């Protein structure tokens, strides 16, 4: 559905599922999924780092696939299902990737962690037993400036082991 707003940018009503809950919002045609999640729905666990798709801090799962939410328009997410970091634990029980990040020292400042964890989770969903190389490739679009990646890779591999 399209409505005319005062500005020249068209507005659209979008309906999407975020972490299992249905959300409806009136968004501008140029609103990104990232801004919709953060500014409208207050899912601030999804981080803003560059808004250019370079850093991966805004990674969410769109129908299970990891995407940079800064490169997806809110209207493109209409009718789809989004998982953010706030939706990964099951009733307070951490996802194995989250748990491994805590226990393996894979977190420092934590700003890249939500995106990293979701990239890791998406990898394990499509490939439950990845090699170290596959893990490194899966998170190559997620920049971390603190950890040197070593423990992040270890944590995702450990979560894969915990799966089996």
């Amino acid at each position, binding site marked *: 559905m399209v409505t005319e707003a005062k500005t020249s940018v068209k507005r659209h009503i979008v309906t999407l599922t975020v972490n299992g809950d249905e959300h409806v919002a009136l968004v501008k045609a140029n609103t990104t999924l990232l801004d919709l999640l953060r500014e409208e729905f207050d899912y601030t666990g999804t981080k803003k780092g560059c808004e250019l798709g370079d*850093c991966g801090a805004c990674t969410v799962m769109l129908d299970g696939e990891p995407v940079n939410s800064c490169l997806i328009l809110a209207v493109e997410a209409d009718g789809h299902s989004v998982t953010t970091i706030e939706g990964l634990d099951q009733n307070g029980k951490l996802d194995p990737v989250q748990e491994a990040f805590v226990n393996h020292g894979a977190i420092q400042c934590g700003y890249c962690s939500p995106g990293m964890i979701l990239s890791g989770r998406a990898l394990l969903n499509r490939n439950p037993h990845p090699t170290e190389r596959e893990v490194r490739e899966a998170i190559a679009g*997620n920049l971390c400036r603190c*950890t040197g990646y070593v423990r992040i890779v270890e944590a995702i591999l450990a979560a894969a082991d915990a799966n089996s």
Partner: protein
Amino acid sequence: MTQHSVVGKSIPRVDGLDKVLGRTKYAGDLSMPGMLYAKALLSERASARIDRVDVSRTTSMEGVVAVLTAKDVPGLGRFGVIAQDQPVLVGEGEEVRFTGDALALVAAESQQVAERAVRFIEVEYEELPGLYTIDDALRDGARFLHSDKPGNVCLAAEMRIGEPELALREADVVVEETYNTSRQEHASIETEAALAFVDGQGLLNVHSCVQDPYHFARDISRALGISMNRVRVASPAVGGGFGAKLDITIQHWLALLAMKTRRPVKMMLTREESFRLHPKRHPMRISIKLGASRDGKMVALQAKVISDGGAYTGRSPTVLRVNQMALPGPYDIPNIHVDSRAVFTNNPVSGAFRGYGAPQAVLAREAAIDLLAREIGMDPVQFRLSNCVRDGQKVANKFVMLDSPISLPQVANKLTEAAGLKPVAAGPRELVGRGVAFDMPTFDIGVFPGIGLSGAGATVEMLQDGSVTVYSTAIEMGQGVATVLTQVVAEVLGVDVRDVEVVLGDTNAAPKAGPTSASRQTYVSGNAVRMAAGNLRERILERAGKELEIDARDLVIEGGRIFPVDGSKPGVELAQVAALCFQDGISLREEGWFKASHGALQGHTFMASLADVAVDVLTGTVTVKKLVCSHDTGKAINPLGVIGQLYGGAVQSQGYALTENLLCEDGEVRTASLTEYLVPTSLDIPPELTAVIVEEASPTGPFGAKGLGEHVMGSVPPAILNAVCDAVGARLTRLPIHPQEVLDAIQRNA
């Protein structure tokens, strides 16, 4: 040896759970009802006089609430930690000196309106000759960027020990080289963000990701003409700092907008703005000369250091001093002369970045030492060890306290053990090489005067239920200080780490801890909370002793219980004693204030790194195959965190050595995105990255801990450079190591 129950254990970080659940709030995640969105108009020129700033088309725009220019700035109108020479806003008739200078601020009802509004501000610039290189700045007849700084010299400082000229003339072997380092960008994944508002008591609140809340409060109060007790600065979690968040970037603007609009105002920088605004690592040109006797004893070091300090003073004077003091490193060199200068240019301001001037010094020294060792025909490790300072000797850095043993031999041993064999080339297209570098990194011990480093306080309070809160203005920016302080307090008070809550970063809640920089917080704030918790413990034991009718000195606290050492009585719950203290009006709140008592300013430690590299002879590409870091960290309060610092720093160092270079052309940042400015990704890290530690206790650190956060930035880049030189058999002298220069070096050698 004393057994500790919490200190020395690799417990998971105390902020880990909230971080993996996405609950942690960073400055950009904060919001308030009625909040405005702010945008700054940054200068389009690096060097110009501002003839006109016309905001008339903006003020009437729908949704625009405030448009401020230099005329609206009260107080001094300038800021800076050492010299207050950076304008809050540049006004008509004044000069812009770099593209991070701002001309106007807009606050609007939405982000989109604010962004649109700044584009309607009209500015007339009158171009001024730009100074874009060190040579531009020093050229005869060059205009002065700051009228009170003739010759564009920001700092000129010398260090002289012995008779270096004579020693070099008499030395058997002399090597000489000039090294150039790049302008490194911190590239924290979180860009600068702030939310400011004036509260119901008229207090100006600034919530922002900062590394030194008290310094920000001081700088904002001075710049805007309000007393310091009317400014509260509070830092939520910081998404990476590395020095970039030590100084004001946007916080003064938000403070000003909040004062003028009386509404909450928020700003979060785009990546491009962040690249433009915050200070960078000083690019340096270091000409170094080393002399030694034929049998391998270093006799003299002479260096000329010149650095592009950028548009304003920033931290150049202290960064250059640290660089100077770091140059001689762990070696016994009797004759030294260092001549250091920082100059003003129209480039981004140079400031603090992990290592604070030391990494550039270590690079030049350790690269030149390799040349010297080769010239003499000695093994580079043996050469270094034989020149290392010995217990009881003094080092050239007179500010170092040298109160813990010279552990470099152990550090070097561990390095060699972990290194294994030098790699072999995979084929004719590959050259392989190995490089090492040694260092004596330092850390602030809480007495450095002038820039707020002197002394650190913290408060520890036990509540009546026995739970504990720690208040400190140390900053958690990923390095793990919240966990370290928790472990120290839990250890002293005999409580579980889960019973300790750490509240950080708020000037209205905690005493000054000084900057979270200079690898200092574990040492200084660790000592402060240890003192506070120690006093608290005594008071609790005294009250418990009264209750149990036992001398307090015969009691211990363990696992949340107080009982006699000899087990003669069953003891009492800590929470019960806390409640008794509450009833009796006994204060269970203690402030610890730590200031090292000795004349020295810095603690020291030792580190050594090794790199194995492969060089592609067709492309000149360098691949790091193995990195080993060996570090004397003192007592590791949390080994998991310690190793994490080493890993992260090693990879940041690899970026510095191989890919990171913030290019500026005519003062404009040309690599203002993360696709153009290349920080290492998960695919770039070495297949083998090893960190090993030696724990030679510091006699004055909390439980023997030393500072460590920055240290790895010193020896890793020269280890990589030396490895590439080893592989190609020729000198390389510039960071980052460019593939074309590697190819040229291979050609020269062929």
